[in-house]
């Protein structure tokens, strides 16, 4: 962990794709809801991983020193872990809030095409499971997955993420006076490179446009 922190401060200026992926991964890990999938970044990271793999193959073919090879291998392993873990985190978030995500166009648009298909089939599978194990045995009017009964006027049985949970975050640059609530009673001055514990809901916009990082 300590080596990562060193890297962070060193690479504030030169931001590599791996660094960006690490940031996306960290944000995704800390955010209660699913964030926008960075398609270009993921495909760039995959290209670089492939390049590293090819370099490694060349190395072994040409009999390069084992130590060098294992250093490259370590680098490759870390990048691969990051990518896999990032994709996995997102899938697990989709698993957790599948129904909530698949009924919202806004949330669906944050997913990659493959994730959208995954979310849809997950929801279908879950609905089928609940249907055949519980709902089909209940009386008419009480057999909806998303509503408690016919008298519910909106979906009241769908698990949703808690957006007003507190998150740790770090500002990248000065944001200035920032309003935390709707009425302007709580204002905080966000200065560069400082740590805060704030409600996710109020800084959601800053996370989305990359002005603040979750940690």
């Amino acid at each position, binding site marked *: 962990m300590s080596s990562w922190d060193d890297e962070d401060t060193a690479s504030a200026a030169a931001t590599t794709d791996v660094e960006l992926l690490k940031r996306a991964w960290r944000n995704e890990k800390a955010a209660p809801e699913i964030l926008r999938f960075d398609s270009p970044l993921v495909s760039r990271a995959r290209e670089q991983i492939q390049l590293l793999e090819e370099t490694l193959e060349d190395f072994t073919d040409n009999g390069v020193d084992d130590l060098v090879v294992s250093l490259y291998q370590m680098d490759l392993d*870390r990048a691969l872990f990051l990518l896999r873990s990032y994709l996995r985190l997102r899938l697990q978030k989709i698993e957790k809030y599948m129904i909530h995500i698949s009924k919202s166009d806004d949330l669906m648009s944050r997913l990659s095409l493959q994730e959208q298909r995954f979310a849809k089939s997950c929801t279908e599978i*879950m609905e089928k499971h609940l249907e055949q194990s519980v709902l089909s045995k209940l009386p008419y009017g*009480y057999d909806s997955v998303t509503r408690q009964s016919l008298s519910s006027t909106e979906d009241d*049985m769908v698990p949703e993420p808690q957006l007003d949970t507190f998150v740790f975050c770090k500002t990248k640059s000065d944001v200035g006076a920032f309003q935390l609530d709707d009425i302007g009673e709580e204002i905080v001055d966000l200065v560069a490179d400082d740590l805060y514990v704030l409600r996710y809901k109020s800084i959601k916009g800053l996370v989305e446009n990359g002005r603040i990082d979750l940690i």
Partner: protein
Amino acid sequence: MYGRRASQLLKELDSCEPGQLVVFNSDVFDQVVRECNEHNAQFQSLIRKMVDQNLDIETTRNEDHYGAAIHHLSLLRNKRCLIAYMYNRAETIQSFRWKLGPVLPHEIQEKLHFSEKEYFKNHSAAIKSYISEMDIDLTVDMVPPKDPYIQVRVLEDIGEVSLGDHSISLTKNSLHFLRRTDAEQFISQGLMEEFLE
């Protein structure tokens, strides 16, 4: 008391270690389902009674109305409990795919409702098709890598395996120094363990 049985199901969930499952409680589950239908029958008969008396069911507030409301709310409560029970179990079953792989061990299979077995199978297939669409295996590399090589002990006879450019014979109890990525698949299947001195 109405709803007590249903809450038993949730207590059962709650008393279970997170990530673990107990045997599907089909006795209580079926009783709660029966209760739901009894509530509904009572509810319907009270409504019918009010209709027969030519009362407006929207506005009348007599004892039958409140009786019906109690049956309606008890039914809702039971439904929420049943779904919560099923849904929470399904979440645990989902997590098995990541922790244990696509085939569940026998002792877990035994604890599942038939629909849960089907759920696991279908859900695993959804993950599998995502993985093949993305062309990247997400079931390996579950912990951050430290050293690219690890020392492992073979727990079952695996036989001749080709890893990269050479093949090795993995006989029971032998020790090997392997690439972590190669060893991980065997470790998750329980055929090897990391050997720590």
